[in-house]
């Protein structure tokens, strides 16, 4: 079987091989004709997958509507038997795909998500038949646990994505209902072997799952933190975002794959947003051991998991930060250093009288990130990074600026001046890049 990623790599190498005289232009064209257009085949496959999924969802919803139309005229026994039909039919499709070892991505993804929806529909229908109330969190977790094997049986990413989103929702509901959302971690670990295998075998097809993992874990950390020790979230989130970002940059240097893109892009955004939040005073007030929560509303044993999450995130953050520094990647190392700055912030003034110093420390950190980004963008002639740097600097200046009592006219003049500087920097850098390209 042809490997799309290998063919795509070969196509990227062909121009340099022709330029160096290793292959003739004619030979390069024959190679392309032999392997065909990789991009369009992938697009066709993607379209097929999408249509299969939409078709599967419509079939599921249509079946439910048919039942709903004559519902009142049926006895409870009849309704109960009909409620099982979606699950039985969709399970039949899944069995067919697994036993016949079907390789079609569209079929596997479509059947997988169809079965997930149909099982949820069956449980919902029974809930209605017996007027079962409340406890949506129990329904969600049961639904997910009996459908998650689809991820491995069908090697399907869509069920994995759906599962991750639903257990994140479950964690939110569970926490709201005074349950224990900390179970999110072992539940999310269930799909990790599939994700790792997918990254190895189909690295460019794992972007969405990578993005979902990043976002769902970000939400779950906030939900699961017992917060027995106020302010621990500062260390946890800074270590987590740094770990994710540096993991993405480290792997992207090793292999050119798309699965690292969400970690890099979302990671850098998250670090900037977190640093901006921490440049305020309020996160640093009333935190630390002196404010430890001992009320019965806080579960001490669940608080232990806060430290476990912190240790794991910090381990990866520090490890990859050291690797990044060794590779002399100043730009990445600067952003990845946020947990270290957080430690200094906590030591400086967390919870005490000098909490404003911690805010100023992060303002200085954010400003330095902006300057480093600008310098890196100018040096490497990357307009995007330069603009990110200018935006960060502008954000810091405006945030600190808005704290002072200054008149509207003065603010307007400053905004206009800052905007003009922004535009001028872009124009100058664009000219420099074009000048460099022209030799």
């Amino acid at each position, binding site marked *: 079987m042809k490997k799309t990623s290998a063919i795509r790599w070969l196509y990227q190498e062909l121009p340099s091989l022709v330029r160096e005289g290793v292959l003739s232009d004619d030979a390069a064209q024959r190679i392309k004709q032999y392997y065909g257009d990789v991009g369009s085949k992938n697009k066709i496959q993607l379209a097929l997958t999408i249509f299969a999924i939409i078709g599967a969802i419509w079939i599921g919803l249509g079946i439910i509507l048919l039942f709903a139309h004559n519902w009142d005229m049926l006895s409870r026994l009849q309704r109960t038997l009909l409620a099982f039909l979606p699950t039985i039919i969709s399970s039949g499709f899944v069995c067919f795909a*697994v036993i016949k070892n079907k390789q079609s991505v569209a079929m596997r993804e479509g059947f997988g998500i169809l079965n997930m929806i149909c099982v949820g529909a069956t449980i919902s229908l029974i809930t209605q038949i017996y007027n079962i109330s409340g406890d949506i969190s129990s329904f969600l977790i049961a639904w997910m646990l009996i459908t998650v094997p689809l991820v491995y049986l069908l090697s399907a990413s869509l069920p994995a994505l759906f599962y991750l989103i639903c257990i994140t929702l479950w964690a939110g509901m569970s926490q709201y209902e*005074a349950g224990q959302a900390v179970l999110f971690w072992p539940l999310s670990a269930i799909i990790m072997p599939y994700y790792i295998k997918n990254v190895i075998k189909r690295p460019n097809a794992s972007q969405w799952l990578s993005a979902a993992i990043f976002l769902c874990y970000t939400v779950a950390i906030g939900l699961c933190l017992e917060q027995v020790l106020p302010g621990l979230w500062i260390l946890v989130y800074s270590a987590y975002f740094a770990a994710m970002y540096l993991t993405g940059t480290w792997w992207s240097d090793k292999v050119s794959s798309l699965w690292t893109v969400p970690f890099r892009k979302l990671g850098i955004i998250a670090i900037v947003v977190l640093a901006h939040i921490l440049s305020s005073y309020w996160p640093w007030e009333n935190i630390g051991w002196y404010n430890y929560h001992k009320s019965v509303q806080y579960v001490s044993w669940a608080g232990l998991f806060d430290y476990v999450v912190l240790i794991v995130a910090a381990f990866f953050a520090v490890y990859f930060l050291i690797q990044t520094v060794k590779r002399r990647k100043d730009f990445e190392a600067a952003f990845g250093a946020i947990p270290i700055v957080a430690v200094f912030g906590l030591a400086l003034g967390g919870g005490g009288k000098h909490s404003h110093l911690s805010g100023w420390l992060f303002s200085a950190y954010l400003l330095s990130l902006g300057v480093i980004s600008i310098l890196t963008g100018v040096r490497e002639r990357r307009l995007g990074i330069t603009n990110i740097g200018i935006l960060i600097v502008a954000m810091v200046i405006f945030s600190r600026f808005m704290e002072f009592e200054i008149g509207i006219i003065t603010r307007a003049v400053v905004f206009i001046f800052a905007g003009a500087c922004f535009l001028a920097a872009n124009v100058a850098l664009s000219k420099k890049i074009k000048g460099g390209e022209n030799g």
Partner: protein
Amino acid sequence: MDNKKYILVAMVAAQIILPANMIFQRENVLRYGLTYRFETAPVDPYDALRGRYVVLSVKNRSFEYKGGKEVVDGQTVYLLLEKDSDGYAYIKDILLQPPRLRNYIKTKVSYKRGNQLYFDLPFDRFYMNEYKAPKAEELYRKFSREGKKDGYVLVRVLNGAAVIEDLYLGGKPISGLFDN
């Protein structure tokens, strides 16, 4: 492939067994449970209907707790039930451990005001055909007004579980009101 087949069989079995177990538990309560009538209480007209079910509220869903142990919101408790002189159910006592009796409901504390504990009872909705639901809402509010005892939800209770058998308005089951 053999491992996959075992996992497939286990998954399909779980997908059948879980809903079947839900049905079995509730059918068991409906068949062998004790019958209680819970008098309906008025609900906010906006809340009376959500989607295709009528929101139910019952009177006597609070209890003044005088036990020594602290009870917090969301804590699981066990409500011992009894019937008053009119045959309507009320909460006789609250226990923090399951009793060796049949006439209790397992539930959670919704909120408390001082010693008064309020509960989320596991029968707060009655599913209706969506086209009949507006009329059902109107009837529910009519028969649940303060001072009237014309509405009640008939519940079967067994070993902590409670299942709605029917909703009665004006002495008649709600389905019967629409048949007429």
